[in-house]
């Protein structure tokens, strides 16, 4: 995906969110750090442009809710959480860049309900690459991308990476060392 593809996908998801929820009233967007928060902000801009309603945006760091704390050599790096509105009674759209095993979303659901009781939680992602390990599915998908489980899907956004785009790097046939290929959340 290049910059134009990402832009079109964001615009379409914004339309779908509004269609599904019959407008932007009572909506909130919560992005999962890092990159999900930038996508959530873009969606909010699109929704405001389309409907004229301003939708609050929050950032969620799911580190403390991960299911692999104590399994990695080092404690995972922590990001800021900022949910500056009451989620109780709202329809919250969780936003992330890539949906893969579903474990991040499981953690995000736990994190979100610690802030209150949303009326409903929906999920929007830019890329769904399959290989779910939990019974989780997205409500809004930018693009479904078939991958191998050990492929590396990299989403770049201009807010953090300077440029928009999605690249799939096939898994090298021979893995040299078990050096973490990078913490996707870090």
């Amino acid at each position, binding site marked *: 995906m290049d910059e134009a593809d990402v832009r079109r996908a964001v615009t379409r998801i914004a339309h779908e969110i509004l269609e599904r929820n019959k407008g932007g009233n009572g909506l909130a967007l919560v992005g999962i750090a890092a990159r999900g928060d930038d996508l959530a902000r873009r969606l909010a801009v699109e929704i405001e442009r389309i409907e004229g309603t301003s939708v609050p945006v929050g950032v969620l*760091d*799911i*580190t*403390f*809710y*991960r*299911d*692999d*704390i*104590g*399994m*990695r*050599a*080092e*404690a*995972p790096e*922590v*990001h*800021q*959480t*900022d949910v500056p509105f009451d989620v109780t009674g709202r329809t919250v759209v969780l936003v*992330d*860049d*890539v*949906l*893969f*095993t579903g*474990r*991040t979303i499981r*953690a995000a659901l*736990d*994190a979100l309900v*610690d*802030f*209150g009781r949303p009326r409903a939680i929906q999920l929007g992602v830019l890329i769904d*690459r399959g290989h779910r*390990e939990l019974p989780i599915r997205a409500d809004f998908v930018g693009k479904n991308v078939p991958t191998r489980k050990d492929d590396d*899907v990299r989403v770049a956004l201009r807010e953090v990476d300077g440029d928009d785009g999605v690249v799939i790097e096939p898994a090298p046939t021979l893995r040299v*060392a*078990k*050096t*973490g*290929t990078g*913490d*996707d*959340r870090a």
Partner: protein
Amino acid sequence: MNKHLLSIDDVTAEDIVRILDTAESFREVGTRVIKKVPALRGRTVVNLFYENSTRTRISFELAAKRLSADVINFSTSGSSVSKGESLKDTALTLQAMGADAIVIRHSSSGSPLTLTKWVRGSVLNAGDGTHEHPTQALLDIYTMRERLGRLEGLRVAIVGDVLHSRVARSLSFALVKVGAEVTLVGPPTLIPPDAPGWGAQVSYDIESVLPKLDVCYMLRVQRERQRQQYFPSVREYARLFGLTSGRVAMLPPEALIMHPGPMNRGVEIESDVADLPNSVIEEQVTNGIAIRMALLYLLLGGARDARPGGVSDLGGDEEEAGT
């Protein structure tokens, strides 16, 4: 990060920044309706306090509980220590019960280090004799960075009973590490002879130091540790080294007033001064919980076996929680 936190020697300047940044996230947790995250579920933290403490013990207890760890509070009264049990046997007992971290306060300098020889978990020093109190230093530095926006080049005076103060030692070492300028102030009898080796300045005249400060850090006069007469009278000490409102007027208007508590109002700090807007003594306490959460998380959030002598390369092999 080292496995233990016994002194400021165990952390690098980069570690300090990482601890402060992590604490920032934990402070946000403290503002939620549900002030608790599941990060350390199933871990056990033991508070082993051989000396009295209000804020440090409660702060560690709250920190561990907000991380969902199980907490056991152990104080000398009401335990087998009052029956004569030694530190070693107490440690072995706790070890046998599976403590992942032991937070220890003891009147003997070096007891946390000794403890590391008997237990497999992490040891956190919550104050040992006149040696160090690293978590206090880290929460103080966090408070300074939060209020003043920087650490490098900050001018900090640590005033009072430096000789008996583990807080002064840890804070001074940590501040020098992050590039602040430290001046130790007190009567010559209460300035340790090795102080010039700390990388800090020494002054015996508080009023000459005040006008240039960003932070004026007052220490408690620790009469329980003073085995001889270090100054003629408390009144004279208060007159020469106490932070009075007259002296506060000599500070730059933005300068912070700090104190690790418990305060002797009227001795090292005038009662009204402790309640001024520039005094951040209560903020220090609030920030203490976030700093201790960050430390417990960073020390216990890694693999249980990723410790010297254990399997330590689980890192890259793990399934991402994510995507």
